[in-house]
């Protein structure tokens, strides 16, 4: 029971909005000490794992390219493209992005898009511009449009990637079942990810279109 104290530290620390980096270090210390490790042992284990996981932060090397493009007017160009399309609404743009992200993820193409590569420079500005067409945007609604753009990227990847049979999570399942004496083909697992993938498109797509109605209703009110 005692090592769970780290989870408690995380929940409390995040809920009270302390700086997450500090919260994480404290949580590691709490769980490690509770499990009977010495403070320096915990620190060494944490440092080792931090060093081994540097690849997680590699994605930031994309920022200079995105920054130069922003400086040169990419976001403005993306907005102009949307304004020219009469049928474009924030919800419809995001439904198209959801479908594209799910289909490409289902082919294993996960890193071709993402929050830094596509959402900030392209998807969010396009959704915002479309929402502006639908009615005046206050700051809170603008934030909602942006948050929905990021959320749509996540939903698309999560419920698309498992349809690809060589993705990490499928391989993890195959390996785990193999250790437990069950032989399952990766193809079988990825086939059974399809019903959920379809439902996710329907559910999130419907939410996006409902969100659209809310955005458009703002104009009729104003």
């Amino acid at each position, binding site marked *: 029971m005692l090592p769970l104290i780290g989870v408690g530290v995380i929940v409390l620390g995040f809920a009270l909005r302390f700086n997450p*980096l*500090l919260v994480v270090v404290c949580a590691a210390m709490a769980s490690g000490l509770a499990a009977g490790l010495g403070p*320096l042992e915990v620190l060494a284990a944490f*440092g080792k794992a931090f060093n081994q996981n540097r*690849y997680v932060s590699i994605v930031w090397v994309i920022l200079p390219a995105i920054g130069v493009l922003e400086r040169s007017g990419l976001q403005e160009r993306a907005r*102009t493209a949307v304004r020219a399309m009469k049928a474009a609404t924030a919800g419809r743009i995001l439904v198209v992005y959801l479908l594209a992200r799910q289909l490409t993820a289902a082919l294993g193409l996960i890193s071709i898009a993402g929050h830094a590569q596509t959402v900030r420079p392209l998807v969010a500005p396009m959704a915002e511009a479309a929402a502006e067409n639908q009615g005046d945007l206050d700051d809170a609604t603008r934030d909602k449009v942006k948050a929905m753009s990021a959320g749509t990227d996540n939903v698309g990847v999560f419920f698309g990637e498992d349809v690809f049979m060589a993705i990490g999570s499928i391989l993890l399942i195959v390996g785990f079942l193999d250790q437990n004496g069950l032989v*399952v083909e990766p193809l079988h697992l990825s086939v059974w990810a399809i019903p959920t993938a379809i439902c996710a498109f329907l559910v999130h797509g419907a939410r996006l279109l409902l969100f659209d109605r809310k955005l458009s209703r703002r104009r009729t009110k104003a």
Partner: protein
Amino acid sequence: MIGLPLVYVLAGLMFTAFAAMSAGDKANPKRWGNAAFWGLFALSFLFGDRFGDLGNGFLVVALALLAGTGRLGVGQPATTTGEERAEMAQRFGLKLFLPALLIPVIVLAGTFAFKALTWNGQHVVDPKQATLVSLAIAAVVAAILAQRLFKQPASAPLQEGRRLMDLVGWAALLPQMLAALGAVFALAGVGQTIGDITLAITPIDSRLAVVVAYCLGMAIFTVMMGNAFAAFPVMTAGIGLPLVIGRFGGDPAVVCAIGMLSGFCGTLLTPLAANFNLVPAALLQLSNRYAVIQAQAPTAVLMLLINMVLMYVLAFR
């Protein structure tokens, strides 16, 4: 063989430049904090393997203290105004999309090509790291191409990169920190403890109850650990295999595939999945840190329920 070490050098050099530019940014009252933060991160990329485990531990604590005591500001590198951007958007037109689209093309081509590319029977690029190496190449090519194509100053890629990096701030480090936390949790036996508790409170007498317990367990465990991969072995060994598959005869492929996807519903709900949920909030400058989670929450909850139904219907045909 080209692999992660070279990519780390690239990232290290980039963060060194961010640190140096931060130090010289007099418009940022907290410039020394930014310089120290990105400088330490640069050291980690360049020399992390030589610091030893404990040295890296102290480095992480220093980074956390800098962030936790509010030493990070937001740098103000000179950039273009809204009008200038609108004018360039008009002038450059569709050309602006070219470098942006080149990034996925290079990542894609590189990922496939590097796996096949050999020289004297040896891989030129580590096939396991083909995607990350391709991403790094794409980043460099796109930055240089954009700078040339749109006639921006030579310092623009690094200064603009620093501008965006400062906007993300400490959140940039959070995914890596949480991955490290996962390792410490594993060492302390946190996963096992949670698995034992779930198993103890799971009712085992009906098919529906075990399906609900397994899917819900996957989601809740993922919320607490930030990662469905950590939840899957524990929950499946505890409930999935012995009960859903063993006792009630569920099809392993259906149970495991949908079980994993139930975990993903948890990923959509947890701040611990920082790279998906908190980093974009910083990147998009949202005023509420948890706005992305809130936007996803209804989808996540509905999908969890749907996964339960799907497993119940499809696993016992």
